[in-house]
């Protein structure tokens, strides 16, 4: 089944058209992504599934505007990222996209609040608005009491909550999560996924989550896209079974 054909909604948040990303490593050519076409409607929670090296993260990096494709196009909210300058891509990462990483990627020398505030500084948000958004984001992820701590003083779950707060602070319309539960125990992982699901449901945020755990994808995502060796191998609707109140699923 064609991924593009599989979508019925008219407004697409993300659209990739025969997108490829090849790397040269010495003499050999590595095809991280090879002709992937995919359309994600606005507001959908999509899980990208596949084994290690299948191209999930490469695809996520292209959607985030962190990398450029070797061939094909990636469009986010109708804008072809290939046509954007480096400055415009930075604006895309700052305002349209929020990113959550497996290894949290918090700056160790900064406190929670300093880490979360960083995108507000880049976006030149004024002081008053900054206070408001910081409070809102930290309350949303339940980190109000830990804001003056450095990442090394937090648990993995708390670090990922801080990472999520940072991703949400500029109110993006697209949340990209790269193995957000990969470094967490299952209980903490579920808490994080519940938070992400809540963002998707209450804020209408489009979520693209990379994971290799099918069970999690089935439980939280509306749709599962399968990748193997850089190619799209499957695209299926999933039934979102877990209500937000059930945060203790294994």
């Amino acid at each position, binding site marked *: 089944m064609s991924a593009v054909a599989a979508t019925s909604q008219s407004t697409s948040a993300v659209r990739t058209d025969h997108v490829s990303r090849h790397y040269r490593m010495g003499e050999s050519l590595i095809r991280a992504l090879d002709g992937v076409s995919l359309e994600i409607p606005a507001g959908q929670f999509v899980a990208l599934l596949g084994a290690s090296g299948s191209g999930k993260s490469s695809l996520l*990096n292209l959607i*985030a505007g*962190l*990398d450029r494709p070797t061939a094909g196009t990636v469009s986010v909210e109708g804008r072809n990222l290939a046509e954007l300058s*480096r*400055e415009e891509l*930075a*604006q895309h*990462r*700052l*305002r349209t996209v929020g*990113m959550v*990483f497996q290894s949290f*990627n*918090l*700056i160790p*020398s*900064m406190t929670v609040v*300093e880490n979360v505030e*960083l*995108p507000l*500084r*880049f*976006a*030149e948000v004024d002081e008053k608005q900054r206070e408001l958004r910081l409070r809102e984001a930290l309350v949303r992820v339940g980190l109000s009491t830990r804001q003056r701590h450095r990442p090394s003083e937090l648990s993995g779950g708390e670090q990922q909550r801080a990472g999520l707060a*940072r*991703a949400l602070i*500029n109110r993006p319309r697209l949340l990209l999560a790269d193995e957000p539960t990969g470094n967490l125990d299952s209980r903490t992982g579920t808490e994080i996924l519940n938070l992400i699901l809540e963002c998707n449901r209450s804020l209408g945020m489009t979520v693209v989550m990379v994971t290799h755990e099918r069970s999690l994808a089935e439980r939280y995502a509306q749709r599962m896209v399968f990748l193997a060796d850089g190619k799209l191998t499957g695209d299926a609707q999933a039934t979102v079974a877990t209500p937000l109140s059930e945060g203790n699923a294994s």
Partner: protein
Amino acid sequence: MKAHDLTELALRNLRESALRNSLTTVGISVGVASLVAMLALGIGLQQLATRRLVRSGLFDTVLVTSRRDLRNFDREENHSGPAPAESPALDEAARQRIERLPDVVEAYPDLRFITAFSYATKPHLTMVAGVPESYRSHDAFEGMEGSFFSSDAAREAIVQKAFAAELLGKTAKPGTDEVPVAQLAKPLLGTEITMRYAERVPASEATPPEVEMTSGEADAATYSIVSREIKLKIVGVTDLDPDSLRGAARARVLLPLKLLESLHVVQAATLRDTTQATSKVPVYGTVSVRVKDPARVQPVEESIRKLGFNTFSMLDATHSLRRFFAVLDLFLGIFGSLALAVASIGIVNTLVMAILERRREIGIMKAIGASDGDVKKLFFAEAGVMGALGGALGVGLGWVLGRAINLGTNFYLKRQDLEPEQIWFVPWWLVLGAIVFAVVVSLLSGLYPAARAARLDPVQALRYE
């Protein structure tokens, strides 16, 4: 990114590697300190030289002579203008005209002549000159024993050391030590000396006329010369001659100018002019013109020449002096900057190390929306903060260094029984300039590291552990 966010982040990053960044900042401050100390020394020396020269009256004085005075005829710049015979006379009206010129502080006649004195019944022949009231602050009178004239018309005299020695019969033999001024002054101060002079009296008043000179015209200069005497109180004995500019015509007895003017002493110029039959009023041989600022000497000289007189100043010497100090400052500046150049390499090194250490952090910042410009500005800000801190610290350090040099020099001068001097001076523009220079050098040093940090590929940087 807003400026205060940038500064805050830069300061935070600098605090993170406090030791390394402090050492780099100290490096900059040592560079700035050496630059400040060197330039402050150059400026101080220049000011010292200028101060002494200005106070000596050498560089702010223009000597004006009449074009009729053919002794000056061979001077190249005087060839233009009216012919000697048609040029105006250097009389009182001319002096007043010169004094009214812009930038002129005063113009006073140079009254000097050779005459006889008698002291303790012994006759002495020497050059006498009038001294204007403005000489009160003159450098030459700095080490004087006694005091300056009580008024501009007081019947008082200041004698030069050599003449004082002659009066007392204590003239030093060649090869022997000179008698100190204080020792000469003690018996002389307060005593009286008699000066003989020839007064110019209009022909009708003179009784009896000893000499009478007339020109071909009926109403032209006609006067008599009467021999007179005046008793003067010695109030001071001076070491230096205030009129060192005049070489051979140095006076050894100085009188208040107004007093000397009131005596109407016949001068060489009067006689010269009389024979040329153009004026019946007294004329001056030379008028000394004091200018507000040595820099204004040239325009004043030009204005005076336009009036039809010859001028002479030590302007060329000031030009050479300025050129000398400009070159000295340049060399001192270059030597001072060498240390700053070394410090700038330190900045490059520190920032390049910071890029390697903070590679992942840069990747994170880019992933969450920092532009190349933001990263570049952040590294620039860090370099700038180090430069500003190092600059401020360096100015302080340079100031302390300069003070130490000054103290050391004055300690040495004191041991040599010499007056203390300010050989070091830090003007406000040097303080600001040094800090700005340190910031500019630091920013230039930050150019390469900042560009390198901005170019980092975020995907690669995020993989970096």
